């Protein structure tokens, strides 16, 4: 599948922003956030800026962005529509959470109700994003049991690293968010490694014999292409990446996006220059997740490419 940068930005930025809102909600319910009134506003607005930035980037993917509002209508059947509805509904509780934190305090009962609402809507939105991909039957690397948990884990991981960065700069010590970031980093490393092992062992969804229904003469091979140049189907669905590049990019994504931020989060937890190691961890995690998401698309094969004899 063609990795469109608008969609890569959408999924990585909203993942990090909503992950941050989830942790802020959880830590607020646990009474483990800085009580400074301004902290809530700063942290929540950073989370919403990431989520909003991703949503705006996704508009660039549309052929008719001026009609985007129509996407709110088909939530009964479409995960993309549900994502649109959920992301819009996630803003009021998060803004309320920030306002009440500022005016009523982080531990006020009303603040906590909105913290819970905000964290639930953040999780629901990330879940809807994941389901857009997980529900697509023709793409075996997406339509499997890894996609939904992976999106949630990567969102929680990048959100935790973002929180470590903010608190590192804000107060210099990050024992709780730093250890959460390190633990979720380990979970992300395990999840991504398991995903790659899984897709490497998958079998193609179809054969040319089943795709053409010509089953009685043994193997079917492509002879003549319908056209000599690329068309929409081949550009969008027939995207192929050389295996050696994929392996190199996998190592880069794992090292820069997952292992390095996990180590930096531990360094920050130990109190070593958290103002520096926290933000550095966040930058690396976001860059690494962008490469990870690029691979999530580039390594995904669409079964329709089989008609052109491309790998599926």
């Amino acid at each position, binding site marked *: 599948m063609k990795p469109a940068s608008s969609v890569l930005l959408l999924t990585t930025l909203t993942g990090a922003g909503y992950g941050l809102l989830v942790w802020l909600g959880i830590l607020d319910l646990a009474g483990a956030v800085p009580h400074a009134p301004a902290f809530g506003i700063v942290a929540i607005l950073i989370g919403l800026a990431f989520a909003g930035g991703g949503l705006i980037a996704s508009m660039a993917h549309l052929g008719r962005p001026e009609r985007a509002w129509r996407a709110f209508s088909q939530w009964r059947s479409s995960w993309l529509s549900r994502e649109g509805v959920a992301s819009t509904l996630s803003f009021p509780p998060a803004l309320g959470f920030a306002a009440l934190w500022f005016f009523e305090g982080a531990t006020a009962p009303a603040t906590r109700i909105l913290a819970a609402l905000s964290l639930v809507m953040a999780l629901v939105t990330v879940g809807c994003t994941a389901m857009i991909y997980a529900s697509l039957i023709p793409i075996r690397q997406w339509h499997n049991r890894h996609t939904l948990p992976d999106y949630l884990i990567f969102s929680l991981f990048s959100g935790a690293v973002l929180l470590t960065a903010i608190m590192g700069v804000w107060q210099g010590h990050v024992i709780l968010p730093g250890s959460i970031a390190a633990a979720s980093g380990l979970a992300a490393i395990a999840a991504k490694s398991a995903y790659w092992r899984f897709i490497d062992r998958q079998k193609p969804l179809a054969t040319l014999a*089943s795709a053409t229904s010509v089953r009685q003469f043994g193997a079917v091979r492509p002879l003549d292409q319908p056209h000599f140049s690329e068309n929409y189907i081949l550009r969008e669905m027939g995207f192929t990446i050389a295996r050696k590049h994929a392996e190199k990019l996998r190592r880069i994504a794992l090292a820069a996006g997952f292992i390095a931020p996990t180590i930096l989060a531990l360094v920050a937890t130990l109190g070593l220059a958290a103002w520096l190691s926290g933000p550095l961890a966040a930058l690396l995690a976001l860059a690494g997740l962008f490469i990870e998401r690029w691979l999530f698309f580039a390594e995904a094969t669409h079964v329709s490419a089989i008609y052109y004899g491309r790998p599926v």
Partner: protein
Amino acid sequence: MTSLPQREPGAKKLGLVIDLDTCVGCHACAVNCKEWNTGGHYAPLPDHNPYQDQPDGVWFNRIHSYETEERTVNFPRSCLHCETPQCVTVCPTGASYKRAEDGIVLVNTDLCIGCKLCSWACPYGAREFDEDNGVMKKCTLCIDRIYNESLPEAEREPACVATCPSRARHFGDLADPESKVSKLVAERGGADLMPELGYGPVNKYLPPRKRKIAAPPLQSACGEAKPGMNRLLALVDKVLSR
């Protein structure tokens, strides 16, 4: 509504039956489809660089050729108007829909936001994106021909069917067991493409037949005495060949 419609009892299931035995791979169906539809329901169908070295454009029909140990098979590929089309249910706007009355899958290009998700949801690669207008387009089963009362009744069939010189394409109601197309499917063992994915395609493909007559071995155009010659001629041939 992008939820699938409840099929009314007795509703038609319009579709194509494509004979892989007699298709000669001439691309006439694709060309006539392009010709009709660039002035039809989804007009225009864009073309980029049509006369340069990388031509590109929206076509609703693509003609592949495959080979097997036994024979060559020409394979026209277009929308199959599936019974459970995921291209419809993933649509966030309601632009993509399946008609309850005849099962035709269409796009309302006035509602389409061009998110391309429907094309990702189609395992058959049937939908092509119109980059000029930013909307998705697809085979309409020539809805503007089959119901078109200004055309003579004999011409109320899809452009691809009307033009096929080897009569390899048939159009009709696959819900009616007595229709010509249903009988063809029953007689010839018409099959679904990728039935394992569960889309329930309506269009059916008739399997290519095995060769019944062995082709004679290739003969040399000159020289050697041929097995069919009588002895006298063979002798003359031998003498003259010295």
